[in-house]
């Protein structure tokens, strides 16, 4: 009996590991980053548009803007295509073909981001440079590649939501004389909207957090972007590029960038959890 009690307590301790790790991450990131943010001043850190570490100038606004545009761009690319593919898989192909395509899409989700970045660098960047001008290493390239990268996430969750809908929705609409497309557009999609919203938020989280591919194709100019053909940095690439050689205040500024990123992700996560809880209710 005693042994059972000991085992139960041990499992409880093990189960607390994930929340402990989360706490550790938050603690250490904040411990490194907050002092610097305080020293520079939150306003000038978050809204300052000059990032010159060698001159002790730490404003990350260009990076915030960069992250914003790249993420937005990726959603513009990824959401319509992703939902279209979900509709395609769920409603427009026979189940046999869908069963083959689904694991293939899952495979694409497992491909490392550096491969996508590489492709963007080799293929996409020259195309943009040659046909649209600019350095090619640009927000446009980043959005396109990031959009492709978040497709598997959006496709699988959106498709799951569509498939989870009760058959009666579709059958009811069809029996009232609606065409297949009218059923999809007016009945199924609206009914699945909270699942699709979840997929978008998850895709957004993935997009904001992406580092390696963005380093490879965004151009990494630490200045305010003025068009989608400009090079830019995101919060993530800012850290990824300079962490290798940063020290002292510079390094702490990168941690402070991490703090900002952490908050943004936590906010997104909470939104996603809130939405999914409402869906279950």
């Amino acid at each position, binding site marked *: 009996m005693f*042994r*059972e009690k000991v*085992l*139960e307590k041990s*499992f*409880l301790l*093990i*189960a*607390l590991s*994930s*929340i*402990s*790790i*989360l706490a*550790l*991450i938050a603690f*250490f*990131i904040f411990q*490194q980053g907050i002092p610097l943010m305080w020293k520079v001043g939150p306003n000038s850190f978050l809204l300052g548009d000059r990032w010159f570490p060698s001159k002790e100038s730490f404003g990350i606004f260009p990076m915030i803007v960069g992250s914003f545009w790249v993420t937005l761009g990726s959603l513009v690319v990824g959401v319509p*295509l992703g939902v*279209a*593919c979900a509709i*395609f*898989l769920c409603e*427009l192909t026979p189940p046999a073909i869908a069963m083959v395509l689904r*694991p293939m899409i*899952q*495979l*694409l989700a*497992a*491909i*490392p*981001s*550096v*491969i996508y*970045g*590489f*492709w963007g660098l080799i*293929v996409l960047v020259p195309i943009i440079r040659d046909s649209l001008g600019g350095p090619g290493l640009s927000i446009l390239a980043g959005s396109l590649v990031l959009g492709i990268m978040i*497709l598997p996430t959006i496709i699988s969750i959106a498709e799951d939501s569509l498939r989870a809908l009760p058959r009666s929705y579709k059958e009811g609409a069809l029996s009232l004389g609606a*065409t*297949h*497309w*009218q059923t999809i557009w007016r009945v199924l999609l609206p009914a699945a909207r909270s699942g699709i919203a979840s997929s978008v938020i998850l895709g957004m989280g993935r997009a*904001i*957090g992406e*580092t*390696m591919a963005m380093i*490879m194709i965004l151009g990494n100019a630490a200045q305010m972007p003025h068009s989608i053909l400009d090079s830019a940095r995101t919060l*993530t690439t800012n*850290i990824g590029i300079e*962490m*290798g050689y940063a020290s002292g205040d510079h390094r702490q500024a990168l941690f402070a960038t*991490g703090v900002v*990123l952490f908050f943004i*992700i*936590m906010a*997104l*996560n909470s939104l996603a*959890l809130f939405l999914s809880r409402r869906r279950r209710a």
Partner: protein
Amino acid sequence: MRMRISRHHTQALAKGVIWVAAFSTLVVMFWILYQVLREGLPRLHFEFFLQAPRQMGRAGGISSTIIGTIALTIVAIVIATPLGVGTAIFLREYTRESRVSRVIRFGTDCLAGVPSIIFGLFGFVFFVIFLGLGWSILSGGLTLATMILPTIICTAEEAIKAVPYTYREASFALGGTRWQTIRKMVLPNALPGILTGLLLGVGRSVGETAAVILTAGSSFITPGSLFSPIRTMAVHFYILAREGISMEMAYATGAALILLILAINMAANWLMYRYVHRA
């Protein structure tokens, strides 16, 4: 009469758009893989896997990076599996929905959403500096373990949940204690699902770059111990591509990486369909 034609026109148009969108999406996605494989596969021969990189990666092979990848993955799995499966056992066998379980799930969900660069920062300041492990297989592996933990918890929980309640009830009725029932009835039957989760964790470890660079370093010398810095295949690929060292080597490394991920994914899928999806 006019209205009916219009509706069907709309449908034809809409479906056409969807077909084009879906088709082109899938084509592009596979084109990416095809591109790397087409250029890289021809360059993969035995010596490539058996030699270490030379001249900063311009020549030679990727043997040290393969060792690095394997070592890092093993450390990550060894640490994350007991923690992950243990958490799943606790959530499913030792407790009901309660404040404690909600906190644990919240922690797990949040951890799953943390970007890899943040894990990299954390791993750097905690494992490399604070615990004094330096840039090493150990630091990298421990960091990866924290990254794959949520995945393992999730899949292990699903696997354990799928074991029929009647098995447990029968075991208890025959005088089994809770731990005996878990050990002899639940875990053996949940094993295929748990293994699938481990494979997913392996796949993630193999492909991860940002966190690995910041914690395991980027030395391409064959490692001597757990405390040696290493370069994984993904990191090597990234460095080759970004520094423009050698496109050929980059293609080859990329192809090897893709093949490895393919193999891991296929193994996971096979496990799922063979063992997990039987009625």
